[in-house]
């Protein structure tokens, strides 16, 4: 570790917007002409025809391609070193991309009859079985297009469950913690529940007493992740579950932070009624910059009848999709992002029991290794630093002291690290429980050399921040563009989510 840092510069193409490119009459792609015998009458009823063509660019195919190739090169992502915490930046095996790109996945219509998609349904079923094995749950569905959507399924299942018992009007509370991912309270609220958020206490999690104080016959459910994204595991989680169960509530395990505990804990054995795995995180599926994703939602047999349909059943005459009569209907159209399920299945085949266990070991080992090296850097502290037990797959760090000393913030450091080919690190979800937080997560897919390099760059930047704070505060300098001036972002007079809004609001500016 700690050789000289490598030279780095982002690709800079100074690429105009696609809307600023092209010329009249250019074509990027040409659709087939109508069938010859189709006639030439105007087939549209009066008054519905578009009069002004949309102001889209007119650009030839090679130029569209080159534009987006430039933009891709201008995207660092996982092509740099990305230890983006809470997201478990894994390797996405390219063989799975090739498999999912085959016509037998890409060109399947969701309304095809079951007989024509037996292979796909079998994969769904087999993967469901595998997740059951990992969690102890009795049935998984893949309709949720992300982790938050799976949390939302839980909120909906909770509604249906209490409704089926005639208690919905009374059971309006969903309990969560300040360290639960924001999607838990947000989806609970969106489903109509009242959210109770337990604050952190000295042990790094809310106390059982605090939970007991809010649990009541109004309790609909508990929604929680464990470990949280400080790597702290709540050892009383079984009692929590019992407490909520005793009060008649359901318990949902947001298992997004599964990587460190894979194979060591199983949601059902801890008493949970349901859990959620993120295939785009723990199961090697690419993130696509934010989906298509899958929140695999699994539950016990008792809750199965409330699942959104259709469910895949194995029958004597093959696999079948069947509506789930008492279920919550749909949270999204169709069975879910099945290409991602295929990729996750293939990934899990390749990893197997031994690989999954090894991945958990390595990710916790690597995190503890990082923690040791990071805490040795002056100015880096960790949340709840009095807690000496080993953190799991992540640790929440703080640059609070450092910022006080130098004026250089975590965001400044984040920006400056991108000048060395290090993807912007994750700070923290809301609410921040330490000042100037940052949360790296090594996972199992980054070599110890890359982890060391990440730390070396951080150390280098922190040193720079002491000797030349302005350099760090004005970063990035080796990136595609300089530091964003965010002053317009929340200003209605200046924000512009479209080029047409931008042009209107900046008409004096004009095209470049």
């Amino acid at each position: 570790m700690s050789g000289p840092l490598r030279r780095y510069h982002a690709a800079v193409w100074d690429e105009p917007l696609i809307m600023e490119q092209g010329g009249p009459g250019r074509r990027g792609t040409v659709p087939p002409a109508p069938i010859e015998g189709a006639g030439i009458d105007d087939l549209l009823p009066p008054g519905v025809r578009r009069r002004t063509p949309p102001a889209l660019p007119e650009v030839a195919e090679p130029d569209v391609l080159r534009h987006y190739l430039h933009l891709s090169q201008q995207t660092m992502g996982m092509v740099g070193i990305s230890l983006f915490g809470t997201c478990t930046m894994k390797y996405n095996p390219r063989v799975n991309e090739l498999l999912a790109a085959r016509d037998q996945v890409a060109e399947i219509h969701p309304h095809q009859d079951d007989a024509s998609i037996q292979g796909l349904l079998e994969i769904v079923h087999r993967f469901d079985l595998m997740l059951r094995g990992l969690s102890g749950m009795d049935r998984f569905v893949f309709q949720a297009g992300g982790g938050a959507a799976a949390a939302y399924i839980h909120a909906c299942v909770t509604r249906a469950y209490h409704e089926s018992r005639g208690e919905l009007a009374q059971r309006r509370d969903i309990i969560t913690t300040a360290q639960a991912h924001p999607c838990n309270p947000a989806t609970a609220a969106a489903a109509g529940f009242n959210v109770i958020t337990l604050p952190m206490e000295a042990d790094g999690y809310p106390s059982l007493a605090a939970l007991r104080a809010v649990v009541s016959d109004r309790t609909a459910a508990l929604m929680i992740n464990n470990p949280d994204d400080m790597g702290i595991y709540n050892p009383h989680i079984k009692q929590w579950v019992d407490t909520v169960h005793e009060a008649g509530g359901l318990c949902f395990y947001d298992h997004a932070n599964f990587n460190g505990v894979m194979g060591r804990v199983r949601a059902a054995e801890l008493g949970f009624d349901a859990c959620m795995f993120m295939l785009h995180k723990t199961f090697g599926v690419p993130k696509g910059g934010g989906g298509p994703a899958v929140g695999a939602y699994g539950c016990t047999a008792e809750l199965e009848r409330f699942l959104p349909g259709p469910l895949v059943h194995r029958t004597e005459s093959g696999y079948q999709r069947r509506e789930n009569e008492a279920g919550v209907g749909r949270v999204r159209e169709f069975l879910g992002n099945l290409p991602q399920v295929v990729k996750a299945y293939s990934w899990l085949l390749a990893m197997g029991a031994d690989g999954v266990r090894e991945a958990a070991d390595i990710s916790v080992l690597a995190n503890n290794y990082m923690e040791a090296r990071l805490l040795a850097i002056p100015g880096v502290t960790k949340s709840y630093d009095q807690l000496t037990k080993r953190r799991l797959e992540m640790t929440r760090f703080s640059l609070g002291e450092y910022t006080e000393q130098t004026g250089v913030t975590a965001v400044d450091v984040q920006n400056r690290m991108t000048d060395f080919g290090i993807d912007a690190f994750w700070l923290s979800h809301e609410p921040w429980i330490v000042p100037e937080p940052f949360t790296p997560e090594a996972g199992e897919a980054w070599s110890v050399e890359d982890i060391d390099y990440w730390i070396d760059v951080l150390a280098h930047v922190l040193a720079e921040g002491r000797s030349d704070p302005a350099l760090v505060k004005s970063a990035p300098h080796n990136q595609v563009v300089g530091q964003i001036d965010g002053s317009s972002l929340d200003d209605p007079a200046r924000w512009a989510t479209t080029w047409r809004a931008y042009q209107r609001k900046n008409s004096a500016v004009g095209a470049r």
Partner: protein
Amino acid sequence: MALAHPYMPNSTPAAKSAMMQAIGISDIDELFEQIPADHRATEPIALDPGIRAEATVRRQVRRLLDRNDSCAENLNFLGAGCWQHHVPAVCDEIGSRSEFLTPVWGTPSSDHGRNQAWYEFASQLGELVGMDFVGLPVYSWGAAAGHAVRMAARLTGRHEVLVPDTLDPERLAVIRTYCGRTELDGAITVVLVGHDPATGRLDLADLRTKLTSATAAVYLESPNYLGLIEVDAPAVAAKAREHGAETVVGVDPISLGVLAPPSEYGADIVVGTTQPLGVHLNAGGGVGGFIATRDEERYARQYPTLQVSMADTIVPGERAFGMTLFHQSSYGSREDGNDWTGNSVYLWAVVNAVYMALMGPQGFADIGETILRNSAYAARRIAGIPGIRVRWPSGFFKEFVVDLTATGRTVAQVNAFLREAGIFGGKDLSGDFPDLGQAALYCVTEIHTEDDITALVSALTEAVSA
């Protein structure tokens, strides 16, 4: 682990012992000291050992996939919420670029290029639908409609939404889910508005009776689920406005080269699908939705999504792209944010941007015209088959209802016959819309040729006479 796994660089004795030494442990299990013994899994993981050989994994998965029949080697007429359009190869090329494929969302400093692509998605979509505030995509059209209805409820403080009874049952189910349960706070009642059996379009009279001061929004699609263009949409929007309700219009943007943008006929919030814009069917895993409005603060403050705005950098003359109104999202405000957001279909947003850029104004005009004509042509030819009628023989786009009732066959029987001929017949409507009889929704797009229609017509002819 005796043998290193190719996916895990540190799964070697050397790498692990270096790290273990550095932190002073001799057994990795020491690291799990936080987990109480009675929390530990009682059995080892119930999975087979991993298969390190890529060739073997690929073979196993391929064997399974090869049991599927796809729309590539069959002739497909299924639409109904997921449509087979030609995906230009450049869309695949860009969508599979590692730089776009694998990252998490990043920042303006790290992922400028991808942020620009998102901005181009929103900008181009805005041009198509005629709106200038556009969010990053949501999971699906159903999700977009659900969010839009909730936006309208928050905007108006009302709790009822009118939706057409011809709505896609799949999408309607999603909307119902989003609208909640009356027992709980914020629930929205879904009121179905009938259709005119003569036209398949919204029944304006029924709308008038149901539209009240409790109506938060009228939700309308054009073309509607049955393919029919809602020519009275301007009147619907006007009526809604009269009652202080928002007009939410759902569209398939591929129609917007020939059909007027909803902004022109009174839509306040436009939602729709992004799947036709360069995304493969993906067994339903290609769907995506969007929300767009006028750039008015009133609407902007209700978005549940993230959105990118173009901004300056501290270097004169440079531009960057940052998140606007982040604070009102669930990331920023947890349960106090608007609904929720999270991973969505952002990779498809990049692909959609590529698609719209490739198509340009003329591409959308052309594809609209081709779909219009091809579907009308197919309908005409199908209507020529004895016993089969096309329920509403004009005024549709891309999809149309084929009524087999008079043939004495069920849609299921006919589709089974077609299947033998390598044809996926239209979506069976008889379960969801029994009033339509033995009806099927056929989808015809730019990918269909005269030969395809001829093949369909001859198979159908045989099917109903066999």
